[in-house]
């Protein structure tokens, strides 16, 4: 899995999932139609018209598969609507110096790569993009590298199990369902008093 793309830049630290998709859009019972609601309150004026100066409304960003953000991306609420909205907008990777735990898990389950960069490489990419906003980054998942013209080769960490699942299209729920015998054995030795609602 290789991603080659321009980069949309959102230089804020601590972007929380309430910004990524505001709570009032969580009343849906479906996973669909969330792309237009991504960053809704940052993206649209109160009359519903798009804010022309917000990065995700620019034609360049709309064509990007990669978002570069500040530290601790995806903090706050556990809503999986956040990666659903990001991927439905067209993003395949988010670059940051760290991610909130639940967001990271949710992203990996939705083929959205949460790429953790060292601080200096992160700052270098910001600087390169300032000089050349049209520059393209290349993400190589099997090799776990992120590169761009004139930049370093950034090796990024990723949970190897999640990586395999992504590359081989393994369904994690199916994987655990297959371990039925082990689960049943565990259940059998579990104190009955823990079956609170029985």
């Amino acid at each position, binding site marked *: 899995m290789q991603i080659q793309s321009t980069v949309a830049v959102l230089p804020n630290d601590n972007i929380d999932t309430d910004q990524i998709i505001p709570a009032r859009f969580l009343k849906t019972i479906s996973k669909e139609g969330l792309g237009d609601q991504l960053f809704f*309150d940052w993206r649209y004026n109160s009359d519903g018209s798009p804010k022309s100066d917000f990065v995700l409304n620019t034609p360049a960003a709309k064509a990007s598969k990669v978002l570069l953000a500040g530290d601790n991306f995806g903090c706050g609420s556990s809503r999986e609507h956040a990666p659903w909205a990001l991927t439905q907008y067209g993003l395949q990777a988010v670059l940051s110096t760290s991610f909130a735990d639940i967001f990271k898990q949710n992203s990996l389950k939705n083929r959205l790569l949460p790429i953790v960069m060292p601080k200096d490489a992160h700052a270098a990419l910001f600087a390169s993009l300032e000089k050349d906003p049209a520059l393209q980054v290349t993400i190589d998942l099997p090799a776990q590298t992120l590169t761009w013209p004139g930049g370093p080769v950034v090796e990024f960490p990723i949970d190897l199990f999640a990586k395999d699942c992504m590359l081989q299209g393994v369904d994690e729920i199916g994987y655990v369902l297959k371990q039925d015998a082990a689960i049943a054995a565990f259940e059998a030795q579990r104190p009955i008093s823990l079956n*609170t609602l029985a």
Partner: protein
Amino acid sequence: MPSNKPRTIIEKVWDNHIVAQREGAPAVLFIDLHLVHEVTSPQAFSGLRERGVKVRRPDLTFATVDHSTPTTPRNLPIVDQVAAAQVAQLEKNATDFGIPYFGFQSLNQGIVHVIGPEQGLTQPGMTVVCGDSHTATHGAFGALAFGIGTSEVEMVLATQCLLQRPSKTFEVKVEGTLKPGVSAKDIILALCAKIGIGGGTGCVFEFTGSAIRSLSMEERMTVCNMSIEAGARAGLIAPDEKTYEYIKGRKFAPQGEAWDKAVEFWKTLPTDEGATYDHSVTIDADTLEPMITFGTNPGMGMAISGAVPDPASQSDPLERESLRKALQYMNLQAGQPIAGQKIDVVFIGSCTNSRMTDLRAAASVLKGRKVNPGVRVMVVPGSQEIKRQAEAEGLDKVFKEAGAEWREAGCSMCIAMNGDQLSPGQYSVSTSNRNFEGRQGKGGRTFLASPLTAAASAVTGVVTDVRSL
């Protein structure tokens, strides 16, 4: 499997729940209690239907509605059709899959993290999950409790297990005695301010120390509740006599011989002498002041006697920019004292502060006083059970006589999904847990604080230190 190495309670609960551990793969972790609510579950149930699988353990699963439900009188219908459809969907899912369910009209309905403990469902040593980041609340009982996404909700429904890697352990030691006017909420707000909103990322907190031991169970829930606001996936407190006393006799608590066995087991859970943590931090309870946030994340907090910090004093450019943006959103000036800032709304509620202790604290301030005419005050109990108890104690009268609204149970203005919300530009003092932009309504501005601070501010109409009343 565990050797003789001293272990923390976090490691013990983890070890007790490993179903399978393949080389290189995350552990398959068994879940003792799965709490379900209307917002993060519909897509998971759809997934089960597509797969054609049942809920593996309906007897370990429990559902209620709280987020998108109105807090207006229960004889009124849910006017928001989208919310009504979501509530109806959970009811259908609970019926179709045979899951115990406290519906909108149930006398036991309430915020999922309030009713778990209230019903005795939450017990020490358990693994508890919910599609909700404040699941850490249940950690107050010595449970390993954490929030999960909807894909994981589907996995737990289907298998009663999760794929997990162990978190790092992080001891938060709180020693000393809280001064009058300082509460559990101030402990956790102080932790968020100290280590920042990402300070606990990748970790589970264990709260220890004399100040934590002297907290009641309800206060412990307040502390654990906001672990996620300091970045941690979970936060817990080792069980003790107070824990057992709280649980005993509750609807789903073990009875008779099972109770004795349970207590015997629970006593093995506390962290062993000599166990070590990956990280630690200490908070001095003696010097703690009432805390309040000034910015747009829970880590942007300070003592209520303080002044709004100056972005120019930040050395990191991204941090400087974040602070500048936060102050711009909040329309606050660097250097201004936070006390005295005018407010429009006070919200007393949420899974952080909507239990009897919180309502009593707020009522102790409002008794015999009047709410400032410029302020709307909403008091929203965490559950219908709490509502009845508060009414039996006459707290509803105290609130109403002071000029506050006394409403039905739910998340309400903590998340502003149900119509309870701020208007653009309004300021609130809120006992909830998140001050993100727009969290309490688009354009709304939130100051997070304790019930005492909220009630004092309701009286004066400005941010107020309760000790100055």
